[in-house]
């Protein structure tokens, strides 16, 4: 993909996050290391140097546990009942599942600070809205597939919104601008 980048394919987002975290800690000389759903992009590198370093990655190893962030959520989203319908349970049980699972930020996409949070069981997968909403408010806590995400800023969106948070997901003035940078562990807590 050009002389100065390479894309490494992995089995899933957990492996991709683990490789990206390892490469960052090992100070692999790359301008950008971008984990995604099943790949890691190394940009601004000599591909041969990435290839040479890969065997040192302890594949399959658990990624080092990142910091834990607690996010207070008001579970009043317009799609809470819809999610309950997909899961075949009550809205209270959706909240119970969502607050009892430790999620982890695996990669970012869509907008600065929008983290894909993994950890919900595969059987809790939900489809996106068939037609996206023209506006989803900042702080909306939402589900799609078995991912959870929080909209850092108002935008159009097709994820199922189950609640809202006042947490500031993205602030370029902070030393770590993304509240949920890849590797961060997340616990949701119900308020209100």
């Amino acid at each position: 993909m050009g002389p100065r980048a390479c894309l490494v394919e992995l089995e899933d987002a957990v492996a991709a996050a683990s490789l990206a975290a390892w490469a960052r800690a090992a100070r692999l000389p790359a301008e950008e290391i971008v984990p995604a759903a099943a790949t890691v992009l190394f940009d601004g590198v000599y591909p041969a140097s990435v290839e040479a370093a890969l065997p040192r990655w302890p594949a399959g190893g658990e990624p080092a546990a990142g910091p834990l962030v607690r996010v207070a959520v008001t579970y009043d989203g317009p799609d809470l009942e819809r999610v309950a319908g997909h899961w075949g349970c009550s809205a209270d049980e959706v909240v119970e599942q969502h607050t009892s699972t430790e999620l982890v930020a695996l990669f970012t996409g869509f907008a600065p600070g929008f983290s894909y949070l993994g950890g919900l069981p595969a059987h809790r997968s939900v489809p996106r809205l068939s037609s996206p909403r023209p506006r989803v408010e900042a702080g909306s806590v939402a589900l799609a597939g078995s991912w959870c995400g929080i909209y850092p800023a108002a935008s159009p969106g097709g994820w199922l919104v189950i609640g809202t948070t006042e947490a500031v997901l993205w602030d370029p003035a902070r030393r770590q601008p993304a509240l949920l940078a890849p590797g961060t562990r997340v616990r949701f807590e119900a308020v209100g």
Partner: protein
Amino acid sequence: MSGRVTLEVLDPGPLATLQDRGRRGWAHLGVPRAGALDRAAAGLARRLVGGTEDDAVVETTMSGIVLRTRRAVTLAVTGAPCEVRLGRRPVAHAAAVTVPAGVVVTVGPAITGVRSYVAVAGGIEVPPVLGSRSTDTLAWVGPPRLAPGTELATGVPGAVPEPPAAVVVRPRAPVLRLHRGPRADWLEDGAWGALDGAAYAVAPDSDRIGLRLDGPPIRRRDGELPSEGVVLGAVQVPPSGQPVVFLADHPTTGGYPVVAVVADDDLDVCAQLRPGEEVTLRVL
């Protein structure tokens, strides 16, 4: 900021932004790189006024920009050829010009190309965001776009260098050379070879995010990929088969297959292609 206001924007045209070399190291948080689209033209403008390579310059779109000097400044306009006037007096393009206070500087509409660059001796001072003074037009990270009334401060100018004997700007043919992309295997048999010499028209919705091309549909396998990281110059092929070349403000991840990557040296060409112009692809 230590700088003093030296310029006021009177008319920014459809889109005028500050751009430097862009942000590095934030793609994993979803932040586009941004930065001047025509890097050679922006670099020339900086050098003409004795700036450093990290100085921010003004990038205009199609119809130029009108500024008024509050203090005497030395500036240079490069990129898309255009008329440059101080008041009503025409001055040279691609040359350092010292302008007294209180003068209206008109960077006229692009005669060819799209984007002109204005560099100011001392560099334009705005607080950097995540290490860069570039405005990204996808997520709007960085300073706001220039608006009528925007005041620009500049730092202390160094010595303006001796002007070069002649500024020679290499004319660039509208040809984009392609490396194979990470998902070239999504192309149907023969589709890679068919790209060589294929002609496309630049679509009207092209912008700093992507150069959209209109022409023979690229035949690819159906389906979508899970999102993956994409590079500057990536050629994404959506199901329509009409390719998009990712430029500086591109999203950091995407779900359509990247079948090719435009050679780095040809990205400046992309910056100056107008809607409706024809571009030829070449495979490397």
